[in-house]
């Protein structure tokens, strides 16, 4: 199970390499982004550690179940609604932003909502699958795409076109005090752990998360790359003039002996895969949160027949996305993204602390024995018999 956590982490980190985070950071490159990134590495790592430690005490249960253990029902319902919205918003916004980007760069003749139809339908299908299927989907996609992303980044850093002096010149602004929006943008790289909110249901009772030192290592690597590599390519001034700075950076590289010379197209395809995966996973989390609002809901981590509720909720998400395509554009997206990044940082910080407090009294060893006998025992993903039982329970509800 360990590796699934890291797939989720890598997925979010790599996705944010391209969307929103670089543009927020780069616009503040001389007014505090560099020091903010250092703060973000610390804050992001600590939040991830706190949240994963808290969840590790309740293997086999997602956040809805953990909340129900201690809190009155109406608070749980409210919190779950907020989380459902957060996940829906984050993933839909990524999908919308990427669709607009794809439309601008690849298919300018196509109306943008039209492109959204295709991508959205794919996400409906992906998000209605069971949690387990999504984990497998995540594994396959990440294993296929990570080498390509790392290849592009490696190629980028090795190129003689990188002006290292520009990178050093910006790095010297490290003494400017950090800003809230830059810290918020920086911490977003580290938020892959949030998907554990639901996927924790699949963790076996004896689950221990190993290798957490990878979080600061990989996270800060991606964070520094997303900020400094575009500066290396476009200098300290021009970097701020591009609407899609990472698409532009990829376009500035060439593969003379690749099948396609322009790295941009490889990069767009890779990020198409990542965005679809991220949105599917995000919608799935949101669906699960919404359905968990009903107290009688018995979750299943693996099912053979997709529950109708999944389809309905997903279709509503899809509809909202399509509708928003008529309203949103690059400028509004940028403004919303900045505000939203700050909002979500506080929610995530609060959640991490809250979860830590909530689970503080419970020793880890206790959790193991308890979760096996618990009412939510069908959390063990491999027990197919159990999932049928809970399917009946759901039908009754």
């Amino acid at each position, binding site marked *: 199970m360990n590796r699934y956590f890291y797939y989720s982490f890598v997925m979010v980190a790599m996705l944010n390499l391209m969307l929103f985070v670089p543009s927020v950071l780069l616009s503040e490159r*001389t007014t505090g982004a560099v020091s903010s990134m250092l703060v973000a590495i610390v804050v992001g790592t600590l939040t991830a550690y706190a949240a994963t430690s808290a969840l590790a005490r309740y293997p086999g249960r997602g956040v809805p179940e953990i909340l129900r253990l201690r809190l009155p029902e109406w608070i749980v319902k409210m919190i779950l609604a907020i989380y459902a919205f957060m996940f829906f918003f984050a993933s839909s916004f990524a999908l919308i932003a990427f669709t607009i980007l794809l439309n*601008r*760069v690849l*298919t*300018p*003749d*196509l*109306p943008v909502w*039209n*492109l959204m*139809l*295709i991508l959205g*339908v794919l996400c409906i299908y992906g998000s209605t699958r069971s949690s387990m299927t999504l984990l497998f989907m995540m594994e396959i996609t990440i294993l296929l795409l990570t080498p390509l992303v790392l290849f592009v980044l490696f190629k980028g850093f090795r190129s*003689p*076109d990188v*002006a*290292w*002096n*520009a*990178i*050093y*010149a910006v790095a*010297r*602004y490290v*003494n400017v005090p950090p800003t809230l929006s830059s810290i918020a943008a920086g911490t977003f790289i580290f938020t892959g752990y949030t998907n554990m909110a639901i996927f924790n249901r699949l963790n076996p009772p004896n689950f221990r998360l190993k290798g957490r030192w990878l979080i600061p290592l990989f996270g800060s690597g991606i964070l520094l790359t997303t900020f400094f590599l575009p500066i290396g*390519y*476009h*200098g*300290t*001034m*021009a970097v701020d*003039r591009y609407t899609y700075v990472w698409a*532009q950076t990829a*376009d*500035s*590289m*060439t593969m*003379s002996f690749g099948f396609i010379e*322009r790295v941009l197209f490889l990069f767009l395809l890779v990020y198409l895969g990542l965005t679809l995966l991220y949105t599917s996973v995000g919608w799935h989390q949101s669906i699960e949160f919404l359905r968990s609002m009903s107290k009688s809901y018995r979750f299943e981590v693996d099912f053979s027949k997709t529950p109708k509720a999944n389809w309905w909720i997903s279709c509503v998400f899809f509809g909202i996305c399509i509708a928003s395509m008529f309203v949103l554009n690059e400028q509004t997206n940028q403004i919303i993204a900045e505000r939203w990044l700050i909002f979500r940082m506080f929610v995530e910080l609060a959640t991490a602390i809250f979860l830590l407090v909530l689970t503080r009294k419970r020793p880890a060893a206790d959790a193991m024995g308890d979760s096996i006998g618990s009412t939510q025992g069908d959390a063990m993903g491999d027990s197919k018999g159990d999932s049928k039982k809970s399917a009946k329970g759901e039908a009754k509800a």
Partner: protein
Amino acid sequence: MSIYKISARFLCLLLAFVILVPTTGCGFIDIDKRFFVVAIAIDKSGNEKKPYRVTIRLSIPSSKTEPGMEKSQIETIDAKEISEGLRILKSHVDKEIDLGHCKVFVLGDELARDDITSATEWMIRRRDIQSSAFVAVGYPDGMSILKKMPLSERYSGNTLFLTFGSDGTKSSFIRPEKLFDLFRRINENGMDPYLPLIRVSKNGYEVDQLNLLDKKRIRLLLSPDETQLFNQIDKETINSTFKTTYKDNSVMLAVTDLRVQYKIQRLPDGRGKLSMHIHIGGTIEEGPSDILSLHSEEVERKLGQDVEKNTIKLLKRIQRAGVDPLHFGLRYRATHKSSTAFEEWQELYPTLQFDVHSTVRIQSAGRIH
């Protein structure tokens, strides 16, 4: 029950397909109905109302790819704006014009001596133009460069691609400039743009000189020798040569190892000093006999002196023109206090002193000694 289920599924599938129908759009045009532009030249027309002359070179595909057999179509138009010119040109040809393979942009000399900003902004703004395309200045104008059909060309535009790209010739006199780099240099504090100069020769093109620009227009044209030295200092280009004379014999050193280090200091009296050290290692390609055993040290010293003298001369010439293509300013910003560094640099640069040292090591004398 089951029939109902199946039909529901079928309906969903049908719905999905219906959604896909409008997405065919009008974006798709077959490859044989496209005209691939391989190079664009932008000149000044001299006409007040239509200041730009846009020339495009269209590749005509043929079944045979033999050197010299390629065919191109040249279309040219005067227009008020570059993009407008291109749109009118679309009506002059029967196929859809595709800029995706356009890898060379030639700006006319006259335009480059006036203002390149709007032409560059247009190129960088268009999404279908590659950011890694090459930009150059054509002399006397861009159109004559495009009209030249080099003898050895296997397909249209290939000669220019190979000249600037790293797959073909690797000459130390050629300094390619990519579009994104040009845009970076135009905007950057402490880094000024340059553009290579293309001339038409009998069988093809001559690219051995470099134009240095301030943010807008050409300020200085380097000679071929200076261009090579510029490449050597900036990019540490090996496979280049240094030359000197020794006892009325000319000595040529083919460089196999080149390292350039420099440091910019602010002296106590407020003036700046640039200390540069050039390490050169190479083999002798031309020179007196018995050079290695008898005159080695003497020749090394002589080579070193000449390198120092030429380098200082080049740096001073660039300094006098008021441009900074070697990005000394950026280096100063990278090594000094961030917020005030650039203003300081602008004060320092006009009176900057150059202090160049070199060490030359002759590694061998070729097949004869």
